[in-house]
């Protein structure tokens, strides 16, 4: 799951040289601004066929949060 999510993140951020871990946070990656954050969430929704609630999308602070929410929603 982390692998798949990492691919999506790298595509949207247009970087292939990033070493993303569960702890990676937006403020550590220059391209990962608030606009990129929305793009990432939409790409995840389209990829996994899920829909984040407003609270879920607002609560995401690092890659680990994304993995956790997606895994929970995929059940």
């Amino acid at each position: 799951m982390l692998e798949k999510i990492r691919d999506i993140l790298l595509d949207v951020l247009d970087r292939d040289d990033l070493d993303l871990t569960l702890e990676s946070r937006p403020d550590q990656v220059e391209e990962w601004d608030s606009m990129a954050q929305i793009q990432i969430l939409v790409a995840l929704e389209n990829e996994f066929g899920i829909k984040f609630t407003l609270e879920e999308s607002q609560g995401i602070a690092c890659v680990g949060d994304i993995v956790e929410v997606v895994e929970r929603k995929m059940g």
Partner: protein
Amino acid sequence: MYYKYFMKDVEMDYAQALEYPYDLKKIFRKKKAIKRVLLPTATKAIKIAFLGGSTTAEILDILELFLLKNQIRAEFYESDYNRYYEDAVYGNDKLDEFKPDIVYVHTTGANIQAFPCINQTNAEVDGLIGEELTKFKAIWRGLHHRFSCQIIQNNFEYNHLRALGALDTIDYRGKNCYILKLNQEFARLAEVDDALHINDIHYLSSILGLDEWADRSLWWSSKYALSFNSIPTLAHNISSIICGIYGRTKKCLTLDLDNTLWGGVVGDDGPEGIRLGEGDAVAEAYASFQRYIKLLHSRGVILSVCSKNDEGRAKEGFGSEGSVLGLNDFAAFYANWSPKNQNIENIAKDLNIGGDSIVFVDDNPVERALVSKELPQVAIPELGSDVVDYPALIDRNNYFHTLNITTDDIQRNESYRDNAKRHQEVEHHQNYDDFLKSLGMSAIINSFDHANEVRIAQLINKTNQFNLTGLRVATPQVDEAINNPRYITLYAKLKDKFGDNGLVSVVMGEIQGQTLQIIVWVMSCRVFKRTLESCVMNVLVQKCLEHDIRIIKGRYLATAKNEIVSEHYGDMGFAKLEGDVGSSAWELDVATYRDLDTMINI
């Protein structure tokens, strides 16, 4: 070499993601890569200002891709969040400096100032509509006044909630009733303003459905008035309007026959055996597709056939009782066993249009792949295999979006068909001059007038080949030149024994003392090689003599498509002053001019 071909495939693949139905996953995940790949294909640069009533960042990114797919590279200005009114009405230095060619006003239902209250009277609600319109008129006036720009303005989508229930579109106090009225007013105002174009989000949101159109959490988290997945639909429509403004509209539908225009194979099943017309659901669906094509044809889209068939058998298909289209509807008919890319190249030659003006419609994915590989400039919808989808797959790609529909559009098909007849006529004559003489051509050449101003602007903007400078204009600029002593203007209409070609050539020059500087000279490709340019030149010199002008100056500026006129001024008797392949300057001493030979009576 390998690398080059690889790039071409990627380019095609990315361009295809932007063809309806869109590949949403690819667009959003690969948007930066798509941009990188398409960027080198751009041949034109424009400036677009986004004035948003909600967040626009992603719309701008995706619009950029759709424009690049049409070889247009855009530079953008983006207003601060919800500053659209202030930017338009009071201006700001950054925007003034930017000087946009196009301003896109992205307002939506969320930007309507006030909706009717339940205790208001009908007259009070009319007053509200007046106030809302006053706001938008001030925006448009401000923009027109500050920039000579084209404005693209959203209308309003339906509200997804109906507080008045089923009465919401009926009762004058309903939000949706109010929105319908505003949209009607917008349409009315745009109809009389040539530089104002409505981006119909009311329609766009309807085809997607209001629940798809907007994403409520995206609204609350980042103030996007529509969902990301709706953005390609929106951006595509804006891009089509922009392509219309710059004359980058498709002109011709090239159609396959078996299992495209009818069900079955006419060569095997015979004209009685194909499924077309009444009586069975599939046959009716094909007839309905033909009716849609007939509608496109009647508004000026040229039709042609490209089919792997025996020509005689292929034509029998149109004699079948249920056929809506007739052989007369086609300006070119290629039914043979040659590769389709060759036939399409021949069609382009016959009709004197570029491959990028052609939409190729074929149910066979192998043929589509071949044509897309050999002729990447041809547009090819992914037709799928179900006839019920065919009309929408053409319609939603906005291939034929134009700014207005003129009588010339409506007569165009006759004109192209006449051209085909003229082609045959050439065969009967020993030499080309005899042929031209036999056409019995007559021209009407006049200065610009109001009756023809829309067509004049349209011709200038749509003509790519016989266009000396590539300059584009808006109708108000044409309007300004009418009866203006600063300009000498001419348009030409051409008739012959086969029919009326309509208004097909325009020349406009600016008077600078005793010199005339030609700024526009265009002629429709339909009347190439008919000596009309000589005829126009003779009249132009006549006009110059009347205005006591001694020198006529002309410039040739190369574009991707106007190589054919690089020596035009030389042919007209001008002397070359300077220049290279990309640009040249020419001059004519009026006193030395001798009338050019022409086969046209005035």
